[in-house]
């Protein structure tokens, strides 16, 4: 397999960005900003996170000249955001506080008996495919609500890993967490979504 030899679809976008092509910027902003925001939200509150993402794009216009493509464009952008956020946190002397101690969600943990068997097992099978489920507007809205209620750290980890399809090691680098802590964040977040879908399927309520 020699797919690695060339044509890199990102290559021409990067060249256009280096030339300052405004259409290329529009395309890149649309493509990469949601992920950049997910990174920033790991570190900062919503409005500061949005500001950082905006500022980053302005610095990208110059910084892209030095981009050598050793990492993908997405990873490079996400690192810029992460570094800026970390600087900002340092300047206001604050750290990201996260609890990595338990990987089982307390609500789920309560559903096992003392012997570790299911006391309250999952009743229904989610038989529909993800695409079919998402056609349900109420469920989609409910998912939005629950996603925004997740702790920032869990949500960012989940978004970068699932929605933006980063490899584990990239997520760890960008968010500055260990591989085992990433596993905890992902698992906690997924359980919350599982519990939400379960409630929704059983009761029709969010």
């Amino acid at each position, binding site marked *: 397999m020699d797919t690695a030899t060339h044509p890199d679809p990102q290559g021409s976008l990067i060249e256009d960005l280096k030339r300052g092509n405004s259409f290329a*910027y529009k395309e890149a*902003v649309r493509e990469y900003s949601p992920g950049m925001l997910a990174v920033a939200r790991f570190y900062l509150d919503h409005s500061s996170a949005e500001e950082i*993402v905006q500022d980053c794009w302005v610095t990208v*216009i110059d910084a892209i000249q030095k981009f050598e493509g050793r990492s993908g464009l997405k990873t490079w952008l996400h690192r810029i955001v992460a570094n800026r956020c970390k600087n900002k946190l340092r300047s206001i002397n604050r750290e990201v506080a996260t609890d990595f101690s338990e990987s089982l969600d307390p609500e789920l943990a309560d559903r096992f008996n003392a012997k*570790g068997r299911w006391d309250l097992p999952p009743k229904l099978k989610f038989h529909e495919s993800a695409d079919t489920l998402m056609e349900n507007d109420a469920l989609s809205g409910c998912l939005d609500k629950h996603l925004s209620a997740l702790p920032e750290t869990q949500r960012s980890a989940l978004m970068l890993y*699932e929605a933006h399809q980063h490899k584990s090691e990239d997520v760890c680098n960008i968010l500055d967490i260990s591989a085992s802590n990433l*596993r905890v964040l992902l698992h906690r977040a997924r359980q919350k979504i599982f519990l939400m879908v379960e409630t929704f399927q059983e009761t029709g309520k969010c």
Partner: protein
Amino acid sequence: MLMCRDLADIASDYIDGELTSRQNLSVKMHLMMCKHCRTFIGNLRASTDLLKVHSSGRENEELIRKIDERVAEALRERKSDGGTRE
């Protein structure tokens, strides 16, 4: 022996293929015998997939509009500085 609670604890690692081959085997053995855990794993996997579909097309339109404006302005400034790049 792996109990249901233990399995729930490492379910994401199982789904992502992050377990050691030994752990993986004990999860598989457990799943063969336990219907509840099969349902749980299936549902957790479905929830995970849901997220991929759900968030892939999401954008913050307002934020993107603001960024577009700032980028356009910054590009204009650089051009008027005579710094046209080619």
